[in-house]
């Protein structure tokens, strides 16, 4: 039965994770993500899961990869400084194709920055934080309900494509309380990991020719296979050959490229006849929505495009939409990160105006409204 609850974004992420089958959490406390660890410590033992507070975020990331290799659904949660520490092992999960979920509740950085204030400064770290070309998917909830939905989705994508998936929220979304209508948990679609048929002849990195995703065996089940962060061939053992490296890295990147139309997620508001388009995600999109509604009340033809998958970016729908508009406005709580991708997607179809804020405060709708109305930034 659907139920109605008043909850925080961090709580909704945790509940989404548990609904998706979370049974292993490793983490290290950091504001503004800590409530997720606290809730997992409380809830996981009740459902046969495991919780551990590791000695740091490097170890947390390592532990969830280890857990996932034994067949568990594993997650960690952190914020800026901790997310920076996780990067090397996120790359490991990408290359070794181990499904894991990372909730990153953004705060102002760099460094310790402003621990209790929101930011969107990790758009690029979430995509390119680890070295080398690597596949990741980054989802950006725009309200508390979406924290639930997109965390479920994060687990499903992680399993479907064997990649690390980042749920990128921020201090405001994480701590904000909203009334949420939760679905009947039994009806939520959850991906279960498909095991390879039998250990005989198992090649751990032999990819399915269509999707490019190999079947994953769990440790301890008799498959006795090797996992490494070195480049490897389909047997899983290291290889120094250039052609093997080339095939591997292209296959890894293709997994997400091919999946983009399937995992693509975005929301729009008043776009039918719009001549001005605001593109925003996360908490900037909350202020943007209210600005767009106020402008509409004044008769201005403005709409909102709100990506929920930010990596990979929903290119096609935005590109199409941009051909009909005269201006595109991109409010972000950073000095211009997602806008780079938006500019790439839109090209010269419409001029793109950046609206930046890095003082640890949310956009006020009036600030965005002012720009919509043609005011100077």
């Amino acid at each position: 039965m659907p139920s109605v609850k008043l909850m925080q974004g961090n709580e909704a992420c945790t509940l989404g994770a548990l609904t998706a089958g979370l049974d292993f959490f490793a983490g290290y406390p950091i504001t503004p993500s800590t409530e997720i660890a606290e809730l997992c410590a409380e809830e996981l033992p009740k459902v046969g899961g495991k919780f551990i507070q590791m000695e740091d975020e490097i170890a947390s990331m390592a532990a969830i990869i280890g857990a996932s290799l034994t067949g568990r659904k594993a997650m960690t949660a952190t914020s800026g400084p901790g997310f920076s520490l996780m990067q090397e092992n996120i790359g490991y999960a990408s290359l070794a194709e181990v499904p894991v979920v990372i909730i990153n509740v953004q705060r102002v950085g760099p460094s310790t920055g402003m621990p209790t204030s929101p930011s969107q400064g990790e758009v690029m770290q979430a995509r390119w934080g680890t070295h080398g070309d690597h596949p990741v998917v980054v989802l950006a909830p725009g309200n508390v309900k979406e924290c639930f939905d997109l965390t479920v989705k994060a687990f499903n994508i992680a399993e479907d494509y064997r990649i690390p998936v980042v749920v990128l929220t921020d201090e405001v979304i994480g701590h904000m309380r909203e009334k949420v209508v939760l679905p009947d948990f039994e009806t939520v679609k959850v991906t279960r990991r498909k095991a390879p048929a039998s250990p005989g002849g198992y090649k751990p990195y032999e990819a399915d020719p269509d999707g490019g995703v190999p079947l994953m065996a769990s440790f301890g089940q008799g498959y006795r296979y090797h996992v490494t962060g070195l480049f490897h061939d389909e047997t899983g053992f290291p290889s120094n050959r250039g052609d093997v490296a080339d095939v591997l890295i292209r296959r890894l990147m293709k997994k997400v490229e091919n999946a983009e139309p399937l995992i693509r997620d975005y929301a729009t508001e008043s776009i039918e006849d719009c001549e001005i388009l605001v593109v925003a995600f996360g908490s900037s999109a909350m202020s943007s929505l209210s600005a767009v509604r106020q402008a509409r009340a004044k008769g201005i033809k403005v709409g909102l495009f709100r990506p929920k998958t930010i990596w990979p970016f929903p290119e096609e729908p935005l590109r199409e939409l941009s051909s009909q508009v005269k201006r595109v406005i991109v409010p972000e709580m950073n000095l211009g990160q997602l806008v780079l991708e938006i500019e790439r997607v839109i090209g010269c179809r419409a001029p793109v105006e950046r609206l930046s804020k890095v003082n640890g405060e949310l956009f006020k709708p009036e600030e965005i409204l002012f720009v919509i109305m043609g005011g100077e930034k």
Partner: protein
Amino acid sequence: MSDSLKYFRENRLPHIWCPGCGHGTVTGALVRAIAKLKLDKNKIVVVSGIGCSSRAPGYLDFDTLHTTHGRALAFATGIKLSRPELKVIVMTGDGDCTAIGGNHFIHAARRNIDITTILMNNNIYGMTSGQYSPMTPKGMLGTTAPYGNTERSFDLAKLSIAAGATYVARATAYHAVLLEELIEKALLNPGFSVVEALSQCPTYYGRKNKLGTPVDMMTWFKDHAVNIKAAAVMSPEKLEGKFLIGEMHNSPEPEFTAEYSALAEGVRRKFDSFQGGLRECAQNSD
């Protein structure tokens, strides 16, 4: 040996180690100990970090995980906590375990998680061609200690015991039979076990410090090692310049994953399923 051969991935041999390297001897001792205990090879996971030593798991016919530099114990902690029924073994080097991985090492020991750690101590960073490590003795040479190492080195046994390991032992690549016995006992200890195996690196540590052939280096192990039992009745003068081998510590205590499982069992009996929290979350910072 024939009995232990079945624990190797024969098609992965020959190995990458230099002729005369001690890492193969240590790996052999581990495999013989596993063979002697007749452990089920489907229920063993061997985890390593990065280094020459950390290449060992690739040659072993278990589930094997070659991770990032220094992090083997953190990955292994995730595996062991997830599936306490698995036998989890970590193979690591002096740099991997005590420099970049030092924090994970002391915390794994503190938790007394049932992981057997085999540390191949060649007193040097072999894989990266001979830089000094936290276990390079003072005064010895490395490529980054061209005038002699001025740092003090760890005594791994003391470090392990102080951090909470419940089984701690040391042997060398020369004392292969003792090494095998100690690894066997370590594998039987239900808690965090550390076996330090001194291993010669003729290519970098040996050459840089003019220690001679691999045989010369093994002979040095033989001449300078004193069993801890024999040492008990030796004078300090006689022990000058020697190092101890044998069982340093064997003191079982409650094991972490078993304690967690027991606790979770109790919690589970009280609560049926997730209700969703509605508690207040205080605003914390930093």
